[in-house]
Each structure stands twice: as structure tokens, then as C-alpha cells.
């Protein structure tokens, strides 16, 4: 599983990585050594996704406002 630069991640990329982590954690060979890596990464991804849904992207808002005027 490769971790991409979270800053530039799209929602669907973040979701895809999240899904692969869940799959990894569900598999038999998920060791406790990877657990904190997986959980912290998934929390990070969840945060990105939620932020995309719930926080305003001011830059985009501005671009669209200019386009509309």
C-alpha cells in the first residue's frame, strides 16, 4: 500500500486507500506491529475525507465566484 502525499489527495484516492487499509486489517495476517501505523494512517485519511465534505475550500469558492461574475 503506498501512501500518497495527503495534501494533494483527491477524495476518491483517500477512500481507495482507506478501503485497502480496512481490507488489510481484516486479513488474518494483520500483526499488532502494523496496527498503530494502520490506525493512524486511516484516521488521517478519514480526516482528509471529512474535511473535503465539511470544510469550505475558499480558493475554489473564489475561482467559481469569479467565473460566475
Amino acid at each position: 500500500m503506498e501512501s500518497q502525499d495527503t495534501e494533494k489527495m483527491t477524495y476518491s484516492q483517500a477512500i481507495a486507500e482507506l478501503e485497502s487499509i480496512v481490507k488489510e486489517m481484516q486479513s488474518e495476517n494483520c500483526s499488532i506491529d502494523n496496527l498503530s501505523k494502520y490506525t493512524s494512517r486511516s484516521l488521517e485519511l478519514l480526516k482528509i475525507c471529512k474535511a473535503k465534505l465539511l470544510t469550505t475550500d475558499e480558493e475554489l469558492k473564489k475561482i467559481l465566484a469569479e467565473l460566475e461574475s
Partner: protein
Amino acid sequence: MEESAITLLEFNRRVNRLLHDVSVQRCWVVAETSDVMLRNHCYMELVQKNPVTGLTEAKARAIIWASRFAVLRNMFEAATGQAFGNGLKVMVEVSANFHEQFGYSLVITDINPTYTIGDMARQRMEIISRLRREGLIGLNKELDMPAVPQRIAVVSAGTAAGYGDFMDQLHGNASGLKFYTCLFPAVMQGVNTPASIISALNRIYENAELFDCVVIIRGGGATSELNAFDNYDLAANVAQFPLPVIVGIGHDRDTTVLDEVANVRVKTPTAAAEWLVGRAQSALDTLNAVSDMIADMASEIIASARQQLAYYTGTIPLVAENIVTRNKAMLQNYVSAIPLRAHLRIETAGKDLGAWKERVAVAASQCVAREKMRLQALDKQVELLSPERVLRRGYSLTVANGHVVTDAAELAKGDILETRFASGRVVSEVK
């Protein structure tokens, strides 16, 4: 000749009287509307065009009296979902009329909307089958709607109530989900509708990378003017648009061609906003579910690790004890085995020793016997070579000056010789 001449007015009255013949009164006629004009009464031209050439083959002015028009319009628009206007195929009940001053016209007293509905449906079917034939009809439907369409290009009349409803519903959602909208204004009624929407789509196309989807909405007002959305050019544009298109043009009629080609079709602008909010909400719900799931899985993994640990905590001392016990037993075995082994070893060694003793004795006596024989052989040889034995065979031994004489040259005159025989000796002198 001249006395029989009548006034124009009188002539026109005669024409008018002739037109009251039953064959041209309250007669159902099919024609197409054009130049519809509402000036208290409703004025229009009824035309008949050649279906092949499109050229006008017949034409007549027509009028619906204001009082009648109010009734007929409501009935027509409710039935067809279509505003009464130009370019409609209509079946109308007409009576010929000739006004002395204004000339020939038809007075419309009734409309059969079923005919128009049938014609519109036929047109719609023609457009749809053309789109299907050209492989366009499913194109927009096949586009993947993003999991969370947040950036929305809105095609609407900016002042329309429907646009306001859409914006309120979208931006005022209870979960605080963020959406980004950009209005691309378009005329949403009348003959210019298709061209106006197409031009808005073209403007969106130039900035397509900024958007996840397009929403075409039209709402409020009467359910009329839907004819504009049964338009081939508009449908072909929407079908081939690279972004998924959501259509909410506010009508209860079955479907327009636009609905047929859109990626998502809803009834009203409000429903379009609800659809978008619902999609984002379900994404948010999924995130929360995944979040819970990860927490559950993590604690499950920890619990199972803890369980494993507990198992080892309980097991290791037992295992250690087993090992100690086993080793102790092994040691005990050695303790008891060593003397026995040692004894065995000594016994064996003793046996070996006996054997060796015997072999040494044999070897020694063999050696002694061998040496005895050798001595005997030597003894014999010595005896054979002894001077007594030689003397006995007749030889004699001459000794002079204490030495055995072996060369006569050694002797000189007067030397005293002693000659020894096997038995006895004589002394003589050299002469």
C-alpha cells in the same frame, strides 16, 4: 347592369351569409399554429405545411375569443403540459367567418389536446430513436457520477424561484456538507431555450475541470413550455457532455427527451438538491461507519493479542517446569547408568587384558623357540668350523712365536715351530 350593382358591404354580407353553411361551421380541423398573439382575444395563423417540402399549402387567420381562450388554455396546458403557442399541431373546432371589415377568419371554439399530445409524443419518439440510432442516448448515463459531487455547474434562469429553492436546499443542508455552485444563466422557457442552454453548456465545457457535474433546473410557474426540452440539438449536447448531467425541470409529465439522456433525472430543482445532499450524506455516513469499523477492528486485534499474551503468561512457567523436570530425570538416568556402564567397561577391559596376556605369552614363547633354533643352527656351524674338527680331519696347525703361521715367508732359519695335531703336538726347528 349598373342598377343591379350592390355595395361592397352588401356583397361581404352575402359572403358572410354563405359561410354560415353547416359544412364550414363547427368543423374539426387539424393544422399548425403560428404567429400566436394574445391581445385580449387570442389571434393566430393556422397553417398547413407540406410534410416533405415544408412549404405552406394552406393558411387562415383564426381567433379565440378571450372568454373562451381562458377555459381552453387551462384545459390544453393541463392536458399536454405544454403552453399554447407557436408551432403546435392542433385539432381545433372552427367556424368560418367573414367580417365585412376584416375579411375571412376562423373562430375557434374548442381544442382537442389529445391530438397535440399524440403529435408531441411522436416527435419525442422520433428524436429518441434518432439519438439511439446515432449511439448518443446512453452516453451521459454511462458517465460515472463522482462519489461526492460537490462542484456543481448550475444551468438555470438566475431569477427563477426554482434556482432559489435549489440553492437553499443545497447550501442549507443539515449536515453542513459543503457544495460549490456556479450559475451559468440560461433562458428556460420559449423557443430560445435549447440554444440558450446549449450556450451555457459550452461555457461550462471550457471550465469542465472545475466541476463534478452539471445541474439543469427549471422550476416554479406553470408546467408549460416543456416542448423546448424535447429538442434534438439540446438532447444531443447533453448526451455527449463530458460531465454527468442532472436534470430537474419541474414537471409531472412522463418524460421529456432531456430526461431520457440525462445521467440523473429528478422532478424538481429541490429534488436535484436533495439528490446531491443525499449522495454526500451517504459518503459521510460511510466515512463514519469506516471510522467505527477501524476502531472496532483495532480493539479486536489488541484483544486477540492480549489473549495470546495471557496464554503465554500461563503457559511459559509450565513449559519451563516441564523442561526442568525432564532434565532432572535425564540426570538421574545418568547417575544410575554411570556405575553400571563403568563396571561393564572394566569387565570388558579385563577380558581384553586376559586375551592380551595370552597373546603376549604365546608371542614370547614363540620368540624364545625361534631364538633357540637359531642358536642351535649357529652352534652347529661353529662346531663345523672349530679347529679341533679340522685337525681331526688330518690338517695340522703351525704356531711360531705365539702366532699361527699361514705363510712360510714369515719364518726364518732357526725359528722354533709348534705343530699341533688332533691329538698331541711336536716341536721342530727351521733349517
